[in-house]
């Protein structure tokens, strides 16, 4: 197997100018990976600063309501900055410091990765620039606000569809001009080698903890693990703990307005994604017959992405991970149910995992056990969710607030 390949997927398709940078990064990552001191430092930072280990919460009310398997929720929302993104970002921050970099850049869709990167930069003293599609800047203003307060420069990307993939292109363009002092903190398990391996390594802390926690609670691994899949970092993080167990691993993709409408981001579940090479790696992309990437849609900005981790593409082909899609409507419904029955507020991204689990759990025997990865918390989505629910009191509040600013 060639380095950086997972079956037929992965690789490193970058302009020659980035060759030396990727060699440097790969070297630093390989050295850190075999250095027990590095992982110990990483765990210490995650414990002291991010609040790990995150709990595994038994969702008794949902379990009774759905009448199937016992449901556990892995609480990545309780990480500092509110999502699993912290795991990857703090790890890459430690690596960037080891490489002597003074500046970090990142792309962000929903904004969680941007906030996490800006937080890490503030903590480690890096200068920080965040690229974000203009469309995502519009729908995720609270996260933009915090990135700026944290001292990051947020650059709205006007090119392409003005979403996550365009922010990635722009971050690469920045990197090719500033690689001596800059590390690109790629946000998910995609991109050129070694990013997929590196991001999954840092995110594997989710699966490592979840496995220990479920063994302690149930005395055995779960029957199924559900996670949402944009790029795939939270999914691979939790799945990696159970790859060697007889556990069914299920990825929930963004079905958007329905697979038949074409307005979705379901690369694998729709059977519309086909292998291709873009953004520096080979995987399944939503693309037209000419190889041009298609526009994607999801109510969750973080899932609105054309590609999927090459590691997941391989696990999909090998039948190790099953993929299905849920629609925006199902997601909002699942979110409401989770909020009302458990007092948990998953991010719209994570709510995809809940929605798919809820669809399937009633058919499970009662002694079955499932884990749902709550990759992030939902308060960032208040505007989107309030709109989706048509909440009149919220609308009234925003109207009054706007009038207050006008006066």
């Amino acid at each position, binding site marked *: 197997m060639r380095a950086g390949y997972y079956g037929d997927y992965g690789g490193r398709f970058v302009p*020659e*100018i980035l060759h*030396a940078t990727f060699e440097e990064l790969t070297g630093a990552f390989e050295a850190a990976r075999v250095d027990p001191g590095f992982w110990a430092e990483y765990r210490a930072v995650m414990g002291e600063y991010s609040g790990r280990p995150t709990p595994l919460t038994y969702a008794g009310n949902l379990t009774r309501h759905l009448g199937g398997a016992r449901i556990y929720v892995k609480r990545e929302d309780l990480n500092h900055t509110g999502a699993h993104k912290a795991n990857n970002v703090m790890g890459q921050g430690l690596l960037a410091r080891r490489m002597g970099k003074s500046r970090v850049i990142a792309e962000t869709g929903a904004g969680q990765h941007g906030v996490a990167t800006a937080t890490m930069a503030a903590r480690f003293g890096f200068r920080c620039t965040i690229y974000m599609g203009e469309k995502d800047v519009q729908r995720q203003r609270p996260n933009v606000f915090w990135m700026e307060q944290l001292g990051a420069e947020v650059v709205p990307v006007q090119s392409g569809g003005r979403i996550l993939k365009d922010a990635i292109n722009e971050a*690469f363009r920045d990197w090719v001009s500033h690689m001596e002092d800059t590390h690109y903190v790629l946000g998910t398990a995609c991109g050129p080698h070694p990013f997929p391996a590196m991001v999954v390594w840092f995110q594997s802390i989710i699966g490592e903890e979840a496995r220990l926690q479920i063994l302690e609670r149930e005395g055995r691994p779960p029957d199924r693990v559900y996670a949402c899949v944009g790029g795939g970092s939270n999914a691979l993080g939790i799945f990696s703990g159970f790859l060697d167990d007889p556990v069914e691993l299920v990825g929930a993709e963004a079905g958007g307005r329905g697979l038949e409408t074409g307005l979705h981001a379901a690369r694998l579940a729709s059977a519309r994604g086909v292998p*291709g*090479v873009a953004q520096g790696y080979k995987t399944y992309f939503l693309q037209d*017959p000419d190889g041009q*990437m298609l526009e994607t849609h999801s109510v969750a900005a973080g899932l609105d992405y054309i590609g999927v981790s090459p590691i997941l593409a391989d696990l999909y082909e090998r039948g190790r991970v099953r993929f299905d899609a849920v629609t925006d409507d199902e997601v909002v419904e699942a979110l409401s149910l989770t909020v009302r029955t458990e007092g948990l507020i998953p991010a719209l991204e994570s709510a995809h995992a809940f929605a798919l689990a809820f669809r399937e759990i009633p058919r499970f025997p009662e002694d079955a056990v499932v884990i749902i990865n709550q990759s992030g918390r939902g308060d960032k989505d208040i505007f989107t969710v309030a709109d989706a629910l048509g909440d009149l009191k919220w609308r009234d509040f925003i109207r009054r607030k706007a009038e207050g600013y006008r006066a």
Partner: protein
Amino acid sequence: MLETLLRQRLEEKDLLVMAHLVAGYPSFPEGLRLIEAMVAAGVDMVEIQIPFSEPLADGPVIARANQKALERGATVGQCLDFAAEAAQAFDIPFLVMTYYNIPYRYGLEAFAEALRARGLKGAILPDLPVEEGSACFGALRRRGLSPIVLFSPLTSPERMRTLAGAADGFVYCVARKGVTGAVTCFDNGLAAYLTRCREATRLPLAVGFGLKDREDIGFLRGRAEIAVVGSELMRCMERGGPEDARRFLEELR
């Protein structure tokens, strides 16, 4: 073969000019008028970019042209036919520049065959490193087409020699870090880099990224064989159509 054509041309001129345009931008007919103006201004070779939705190595001017061409419905088939029309109408070498996903989806052998059948001389694929490129490079070479290899200022001398082993036609030396269309310093650093390039290969050297005036071209004389103009040419074309592009190219000489 491309190298032979270039060597013949270099017997008459000490520095050749390769111009860049994006197929389908602003439109196919305007593109042909632009090529006509380029040829009239003495351009020696043209790289026709097949637009891609994720043009990672391109700066804002060319990235926007890619996007506009696609919004206006340009397909790969139309772009190839456009290139064929140009190659038939003008007696200079035409190359295709695009990103790897385009030939990959088209089928590597079919794509190479399409270039050969249309009279094109080679392909520049900036996101296809030689480590990943053997199938594509082989498909091109078997048809007498040149896969163009790129050097960058950060390419080590050892790596330059490795890349040179896979190179054909000429070597494209990226003048600086960064994407197309930003400022390049034509200074001692660039001169030393071009010396390293020269030591690594006997193929003609083309220098691109950031060329914008006569002084830049003057700097390259004696240091390289081909000057590549892209973004600045496109800016001129956007300002005043093919006529301005022609004036710009004539002033370069």
